[in-house]
């Protein structure tokens, strides 16, 4: 029997979510998450000239708004951890140069949102930093251009194809009490079930989500009944079906408390795609919709499993399979604090 490697860290002193801000493009505003947005841009260019600059504008807006919402100054932040989908995480790099913070660029594809939250949580918990800011972004045009074809290029897409969410989310984590806290984090491992289709990322990512979920339950010794909501990042229509089936094979019946970010962001039956994807997808749904519902005490304990397909257009063309990853963060509503 191999020695079990720890993947989950349960926090003794919770780390708090001080504030979260989300901004998005036009199509996301029309969706169910639209009413929770802090700001939305009227078109995909966000007042800039290129997709890449537009994504930067989104992230910067999210960072500034989260600072304002927390009532913090720039110098209150000790660490900036950010990620996006573009090569060399350029959006984060260029956003980071506008701020004086120590910066770590992260990449876990669409799971970057929870990766950065998990990392900052652990840093805050260990006392290394007092307050950290995490930001993620994705942009439909920029991602489409890098991973697939030009936006205006006409091509038939399979029904499993997902649409990258245009948006950015920023969240400030600190040790000063607030309404929502992080209870535990599970860092996933790269899982590869031999899926090769880059236009069917949902199903490729489902096993990773399932493995992380199972490890989280095993490590913490909890059952699925302990959670009010289990949220996956962006498995979309097909992937979320597979995820539920995998859970059911293990005797985990979670259908009544399960939500998928990809299914939520554009409504349940979006036209022309199987749902949303992208680093901002899980961020928008978690920081906007889920946090709002948690603040109004609708949900008390939420497990957010962000999933990412770690593929590269080159390796896909070289006929390699797609490794996937999922990071889980447990958010809990703190009852005794008098507002945050």
């Amino acid at each position, binding site marked *: 029997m191999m020695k079990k490697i720890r993947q989950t860290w349960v926090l003794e002193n919770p780390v708090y979510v001080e504030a979260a801000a989300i901004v998005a493009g036009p199509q996301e505003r029309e969706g169910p998450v639209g009413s929770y947005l802090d700001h939305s841009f009227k078109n995909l260019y966000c007042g800039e*000239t*290129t997709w*890449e600059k537009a994504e930067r504008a989104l992230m910067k807006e999210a960072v500034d708004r989260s600072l304002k919402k927390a009532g913090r100054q720039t110098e209150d932040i000790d660490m900036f951890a950010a990620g996006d989908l573009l090569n060399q995480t350029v959006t984060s790099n260029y956003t980071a140069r506008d701020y004086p913070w120590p910066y770590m660029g992260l990449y876990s594809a669409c799971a970057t949102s929870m990766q950065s939250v998990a990392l900052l949580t652990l840093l805050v918990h260990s006392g290394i930093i007092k307050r950290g800011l995490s930001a993620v972004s994705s942009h439909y045009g920029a991602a489409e*251009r890098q991973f697939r*074809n*030009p*936006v*205006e*290029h*006409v091509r*038939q897409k*399979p*029904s*499993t194809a997902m649409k990258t969410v245009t948006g950015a989310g920023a969240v400030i984590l600190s040790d000063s009490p607030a309404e929502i806290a992080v209870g535990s984090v599970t860092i996933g491992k790269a899982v590869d*079930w*031999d899926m090769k289709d880059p236009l069917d990322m949902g*199903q490729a990512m*489902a*096993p990773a989500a399932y493995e992380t979920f199972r490890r989280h339950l095993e490590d913490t010794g909890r059952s699925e009944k302990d959670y009010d909501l289990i949220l996956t990042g962006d498995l979309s229509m*097909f992937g979320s*079906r*597979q995820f539920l*089936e*995998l859970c059911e*094979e293990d005797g985990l019946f979670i259908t009544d408390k399960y939500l998928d970010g990809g299914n939520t962001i554009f409504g349940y039956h979006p036209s*022309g795609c199987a749902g949303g994807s992208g680093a901002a997808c899980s961020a928008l749904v978690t920081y906007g919709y889920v946090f709002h519902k948690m603040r109004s005490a609708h949900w008390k304990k939420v497990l957010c499993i962000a999933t990412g397909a770690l593929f590269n257009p080159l390796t896909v063309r070289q006929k390699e399979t797609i490794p996937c990853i999922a990071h889980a963060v447990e958010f809990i509503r703190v009852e005794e604090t008098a507002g945050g």
Partner: protein
Amino acid sequence: MKSEEQIRKERFEERRKRMIIKPPRIKNAVTAFVTGGLLAVAAQLLFNRYIVWFNLTEREAVNPVVATFILGACILTGAGVFSRISEKWGAGVIVPITGFANSVTSSAMEARAEGVVYGIAGNMFRIAGVVLVFGVASAYLVSFIRVLIETLIN
């Protein structure tokens, strides 16, 4: 003896195959047939007009008609309308030269921020380059075979 892991993976694969939604091929084919046919009719009418207006022979009038269609597709792509049209009208609007024009224009549009030389010119044929290479190669091959057969017969 299969491990539990393998059985799980096999079941996963089985479900994946079951879940695949096949595109409505017959409906798509009929749509493409109708829209492609309508475009062809429009092209023929234009062809007839060009012969009268510009005093061309039938042989000469082909290229201006093709050029008109390419120009149309480029402008529509640039205006962001082409993708919406093709969503409704299907392959009928892509299969003629218009699809090629669309791929060149869309690639060039995306790269315009990187400058004229390395951006637009360098990326223009990112998608269409494949078509060009195989088009030229197969044209060469076919005409070679034709010449070979002709010389053999004579």
